[in-house]
């Protein structure tokens, strides 16, 4: 958890520092399954954000009324209610989208991001903070799905948002819209994210070493060969 507890911090936490996909590795099942196109990915992300926001708000509001022993059961009922609302509204208003996302909308009930945030955050923090945390987590999840869906749609069907972006001469790599492509994309993105994180950490360490050395240089000049070794 972040040291500072301002709402902005709670929100930004979900975008990168605790991104549900890249950092917490939660909810990977819908991530792999629905990201054949950007539209599907974003729709799934927004549906999850809606459920996450409202269940976090409600759970945070009623947390003191729920006996500890039945808290999980109570959370699940709250979450399931909002998921069913999303499912019904989608079927009525966006039948095409509802068909494309199929069984994955009802499965938001068991998406670990939602129960995870309810248990780890909403049940311990104020309504306002829980709301911002939910929005941040939802935004982080949606962004991750957008990136994965974008990569898979471009490589797998030469399109982006349903518009053709690559010429016909480029043979679409079908594997990217098949399940195997989901694993490849997600794996490579994990690699990039971890590599970036590692470099950031290395930079901080390097800086600390450099600061220490310059402090030493002022008092005792260090031998040149040890310096090159350290660098």
């Amino acid at each position, binding site marked *: 958890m972040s040291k500072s507890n301002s709402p902005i911090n709670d929100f930004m936490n979900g975008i990168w520092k605790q991104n549900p996909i890249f950092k917490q590795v939660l909810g990977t099942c819908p991530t792999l399954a629905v990201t*054949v196109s950007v539209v599907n990915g974003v729709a799934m992300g927004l549906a999850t954000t809606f459920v996450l926001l409202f269940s976090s708000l409600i759970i945070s509001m009623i947390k003191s*009324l*729920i*006996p500890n*022993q*039945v808290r999980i*059961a*109570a959370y699940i*009922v*709250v979450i*399931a*209610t909002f998921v*069913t*609302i999303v499912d*019904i*509204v989608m*079927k*009525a*208003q966006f*039948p095409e989208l509802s*068909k494309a996302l199929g069984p994955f909308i009802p499965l938001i009930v068991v998406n670990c991001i939602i129960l995870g945030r309810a248990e780890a955050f909403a049940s311990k923090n104020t309504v306002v903070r829980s709301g911002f945390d939910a929005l941040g987590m939802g935004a982080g999840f949606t962004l991750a799905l957008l990136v994965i869906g974008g990569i898979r749609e471009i490589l*797998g069907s030469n399109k982006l948002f349903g518009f053709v972006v690559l010429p016909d001469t480029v043979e*679409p790599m*079908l594997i990217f*819209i*098949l399940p195997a492509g989901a694993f490849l994309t997600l794996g490579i993105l994990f690699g990039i994210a971890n590599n970036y994180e590692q470099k950031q950490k290395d930079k901080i360490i390097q800086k600390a070493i450099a600061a220490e050395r310059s402090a030493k240089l002022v008092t005792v000049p260090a031998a040149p060969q040890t310096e090159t070794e350290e660098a």
Partner: protein
Amino acid sequence: MNNVTKMLVTLVVIGAISGGLLAKIFEWADPQIKANAQRETERAIFVVHPEGKKQEKVTGIPDELYKVMDVKGNLIGYAIQIKGNGFQGVIKMMMGVSPDLKKITGLTVLDQVETPGLGSEITKESFTDQFKKVDPTPAIVGKKGATETPNDILTITGATISSVAVVKIMNLGIEELRKLKKEGKI
């Protein structure tokens, strides 16, 4: 209030609120969901019978069967919803046939989960339009490479299982129609 009663009361209250809320929302959405399904079916019926103007569901049989009429109300054929197993899941289609069941007027795929890029080609017109020229008596046959008899259609390269599944489902559908005709139900 002891702990057990408190637990019960909490869950009952949460359940009741959630149930009530969902009932209200469903009441609002149900007519729209039904209208969407209806529109989808009607669209499919007129795709397989381009000259059709009116349709009427045949009642009293287990199948989803529609009579299709032209502007003057003359019967120009039937549209039947058929389904069966494909390569990865159920393929659901709407098939149009002439009144004497000797000719297929059209085919459109309603639902399928075949392999994208291979099996999913069954939804393309290049595949489904073949059936308009085929003779369904005694049965349609899926052939690789080249067609030989009027009963043959070309299967899709790399998607033989999906193509043959479509043919099999259609043959079963036609058989069902013949049976209904014999029994005098249509």
